[in-house]
């Protein structure tokens, strides 16, 4: 009889809920009609399934490109912003932090409308860049928070020692601060990617129907009759960030920075 340590129950529940859900969606994505109260479908349609997955590739590509750009631009912005906030005088620090956090306070349903009006005004709406910009605004507070928390944990004497060796502020940033922040920036990139990947409302409002991502189609198909296609798209939308999560751990574990990122 195997013993389950109560302390490992949360992990077990997480795994069970994930795998059970994925299995059910896999079954739904390959079934022709899965009527109530069948526990197992009577008819399967593999050709249609393959076609559904094939049709999803452009959507997958668009969603991935947007999320990847948000993640990349996000860390390019977060690192120097974190350094600026870390080094600037106390009163400006609070102002800067509030400024960066402010977009996170505005409800997306409100900011999305505002961003879309602004982008229409400057003739920038309905394209991937506009969607990336909108996603970036909502992801940046979280990415910056991570970068800042890593930076504030560093020993200031490292920077002072570098200055004592004759390095300029810019050199210290690029050669000392950035390497020290690397693990945090990987985490920030991962967080930015997953926030952007799951965005629906901002993409609808700012994309203006020209940029179509997986979450948009998933929501629109949720109440449709084509549950087979719906399940296929749900699987892709679910599995890509899951895969990115696992890959992120593999990369960090290999470089030995997992413990650092988690402390």
């Amino acid at each position, binding site marked *: 009889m195997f013993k389950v340590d109560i*302390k*490992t129950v949360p*992990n077990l529940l*997480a795994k069970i*809920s*994930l795998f059970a859900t994925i299995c*059910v*969606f896999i079954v739904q994505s390959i079934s022709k009609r899965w009527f*109530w*109260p*069948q*526990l197992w479908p009577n008819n399967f349609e593999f050709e249609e399934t393959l076609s559904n997955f094939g049709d999803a590739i452009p959507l997958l590509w668009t969603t991935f490109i947007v999320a990847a750009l948000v993640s990349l631009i996000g860390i390019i*912005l977060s690192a*120097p912003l974190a*350094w*600026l906030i870390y*080094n*600037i005088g*106390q009163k400006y620090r609070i102002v*800067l932090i509030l400024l960066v956090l*402010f*977009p*996170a*306070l*505005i*409800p997306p*349903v*409100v*900011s999305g409308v*505002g*961003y879309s*009006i*602004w982008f229409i005004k400057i003739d920038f709406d309905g394209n991937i860049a506009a969607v990336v*910009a909108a996603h970036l605004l909502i992801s*940046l507070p979280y990415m910056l928070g991570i970068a800042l928390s890593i930076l504030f944990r560093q020993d200031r004497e490292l920077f*002072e020692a570098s*200055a004592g060796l004759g390095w*300029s*502020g*810019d050199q*210290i940033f690029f050669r000392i601060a950035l390497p020290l922040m690397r693990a945090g920036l990987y985490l920030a990139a991962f967080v930015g990617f*997953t926030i952007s*990947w799951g965005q*629906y*409302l901002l993409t609808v409002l700012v994309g203006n129907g020209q940029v179509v991502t997986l*979450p948009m189609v*998933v*929501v629109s198909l*949720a109440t449709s009759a084509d549950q087979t296609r719906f399940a296929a798209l*749900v699987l892709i*939308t*679910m599995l890509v*960030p*899951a895969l990115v*999560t*696992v890959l*992120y751990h593999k990369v960090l574990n290999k470089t030995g920075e*997992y*413990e650092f990122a*988690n402390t």
Partner: protein
Amino acid sequence: MANPVTPNMYLSSRFKFVTGGALAVLLIPVFYSLWYVLAQANNAEGFIGNLSRIDAPENANGEFLESFLFTVLLAVISSTVALMAALISSALLVEHSIKNKFKKGVDGTWFEVLVSIPHAVWAAAIFLWLSQSGVLSRISFQLGLVENPADFPTLVRDNNGLGLFIHYLSKEYPFMLLVLTVVLWARYRYLSPVAASLGAGLIYRTRYLAWPILKPAALGVWLVSFSFILHSYEAPALLGSVKPRVLSVLVFELFKDPTIEKRATAALIGVLLLVVTAFASLVGLFLIWKSTRKVADV
């Protein structure tokens, strides 16, 4: 070399200009959208007029107050229950890691996978499991508990928000757990063995050591979760009922209406949501600051 504790010492003028400039450019649409929403909210009968008649038929048509209370209650209850579960789980998981001498702390991979799944997708999964034609309903039929779908209790798209509660609980709990285990592991792994060696059992250690360490982080994640649920659209769009609607859904529907009054009401509700979030953030930050205050020094 200048005094090493001088602010701006490591910031060249070029660095400040480029970084500050990039931030300024990025914030333009943010301030524009704030201005736009305030301007919209001031349309029709003006800000105060719109506020006093927010539930009038040409505005929110009686939906606002009910929707507001429902949304706030949902956010408070979901965040609180998720936090309670995450606090207990994080203490147990960290103790387990300490006891088994895991060098890397708590392995949060599976929780991170759960957190990474978009809300729209997870809401679809909740629907799949809990709807009257869903998996649990089918299992109930096989067990002889129900005879047709209508016999299965309404767990999603219900008036009580149960489906939404389950959704937010299952999404916020892993997020909170991840943050709390990291915070706890950082310090608690050194202090827990000391406390055990001094005779403190698991419950005593959790109450008097883990909780003070977790308190600021617990307040922080509750605040993040509360704000998120308050603003959330995707999950309520899929799992919420028609009445009462969650505020974000109501706002979105009102914004889509071509009439000035409805759009003004939408903008006004958006401003109210912002005010509530800002107020909650201020209160939360104050409580976090208070909980991290050091012991008085003589």
